[in-house]
């Protein structure tokens, strides 16, 4: 108890003190959330911005639901994100399967950190040049390829780190009790890896779904994703439909963040 008291006395005498620290944290969260709250409030305003608050309405949500081009862009993003997630997680599982059978993966692992080391703009521009050279026309394929590269940079290090932490005695027991290596992989290793597979899949999905830079370069003119749609709406001026869309997307990402928290082994949020 004496130690604890000491810790607090010193803490109070720190440069910004306890109250100062709390104020700092509070203002950081204000900084993070004020724009979002303002945005959400104006999604219910009956007049379009910059007019002040005039009255409550749900009409922008109605227009959001009936906007055909928006939902097409939404579906495009969804298809691309699901494919990129599926492919990168699948390839991650294959690589872990190889590692579980005794393959040496560690030395190749550094290859996958590349996409974190260089700016995404550089990757996007390089891929654009590459697709031009091998004449793959820009569109769904190129976006899925690019987003999968981004995804691999997360899936492989995350899942492999979890794989190294696994309790080997489990796999050993399975092998000793007569299961084949393949049975062991599917019945023991893979279920133990499930949380890290799901969390990395969520991350890849979000990165792909929200991606702007790579999409901007590699989408071509035929595919419009949600990011590009929002960009065109922002460029053409302020529209409350975008506010309504933000509310919807914030809701979706909150749910995904909740799932992520539950699975990443943290205790409950609320």
């Amino acid at each position, binding site marked *: 108890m004496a130690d604890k008291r000491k810790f607090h006395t010193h803490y109070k005498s720190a440069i910004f003190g306890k109250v100062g620290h709390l104020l700092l944290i509070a203002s950081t969260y204000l900084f993070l959330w004020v*724009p979002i709250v303002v945005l959400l409030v104006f999604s219910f305003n009956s007049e379009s911005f910059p007019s002040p608050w005039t009255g409550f309405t749900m009409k922008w949500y109605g227009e959001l639901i009936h906007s055909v081009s928006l939902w097409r862009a939404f579906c495009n993003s969804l298809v691309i994100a699901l494919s990129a997630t599926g492919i990168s997680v699948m390839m991650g599982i294959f690589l872990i399967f190889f590692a579980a059978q005794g393959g040496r993966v560690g030395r190749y692992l550094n290859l996958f950190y590349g996409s974190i080391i260089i700016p995404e703009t550089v990757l996007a521009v390089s891929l654009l*040049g590459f697709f031009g050279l091998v004449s793959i026309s820009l569109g769904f394929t190129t976006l899925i390829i690019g987003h999968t590269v981004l995804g691999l940079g997360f899936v492989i290090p995350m899942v492999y780190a979890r794989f190294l932490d696994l309790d080997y005695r489990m796999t050993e027991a399975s092998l000793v009790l007569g299961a084949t*290596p393949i049975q062991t992989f599917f019945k023991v290793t893979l279920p133990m890896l499930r949380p890290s597979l799901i969390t990395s899949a969520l991350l890849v999905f979000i990165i792909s779904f929200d991606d702007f830079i790579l999409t901007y370069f590699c989408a071509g003119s035929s595919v419009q994703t949600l990011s590009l749609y929002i960009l065109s709406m922002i460029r053409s001026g302020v529209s409350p439909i975008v506010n309504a869309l933000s509310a919807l997307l914030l809701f979706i990402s909150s749910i995904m963040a909740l799932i992520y928290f539950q699975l990443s082994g943290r205790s409950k949020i609320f």
Partner: protein
Amino acid sequence: MKFLRPPVSDRPFAIGIPALIWQVLFFYIPLLIIVLTSFLKTTPYGIVGITFEKIAHFINPLYLRVIGFSLLLAFVNVILCFLIAYPLAYFLAFKGRKIKNFLLFLLLIPFWTNFLLHVYAWFYVLERHGFLNNMLMNLGVLKTPIILLNTPFAIIIMMVYYYLPFMVLPIYTSLERFNTSLIEASFDLGATWLQTFRRIVLPLTMRGVRAGFFLVYIPSFGEFAIPSLMGGDKIMFVGNVVSEYILGEGTASLGAAFMVVSCFILLITAVFFYWLLGRFTEPVRDRG
């Protein structure tokens, strides 16, 4: 006890390979090609030789200034993010208690929502008749609204807003693993809070700071959407110049060359910062 491994001949290398092929084919080869094209002299009939003209074209004050601005933007962003992120991460790791996870959750949601929506949200705050101007006028701080959008201020605000979580999360992770009894030991031995922070806490969490530094520094250098949307294309950064060259007619190889030049300079500064931060990483020994 040794892990029972299946016989060597069973190793299905072919199954492990797709991820490697994908990474090499769609990451390393395109990068290599872009570097090569900036050195190759091409005519409509094919490659005719090696040239340094394209590279030399960008070694002039005009373009070096663009690179300088980008480095400055990235550096200022990194410093501001660090100054905001460290107290936040410290609070989350040691003081958050019951609301810790909720605060982390609040930090992650904006991070996981399309960043263009945040740009859009900041329009509402920074507009001439936006939230900030209205609030300051209601409080009597301002008489007439000030212009906030399309200024360097707007760019920096948006950059910090977007990149903050990239700095908070690695620092938070390293603080969470930090053994708090070291702080108590330091106090017991008579150190002040500042000494404890500077000589114990900071050096032992420098790994997280360094990770955060590069997660913010590298992408901010290439950023082009935020400067163009928040800054109204008034100040050109590397990302803007590259994207204009690349998407322009017949100037793609020049864009590639500019990218190679600027990435080379970025790499030099990154190596320098890696070394600099590494110097602080080791705990201070044998002094005092």
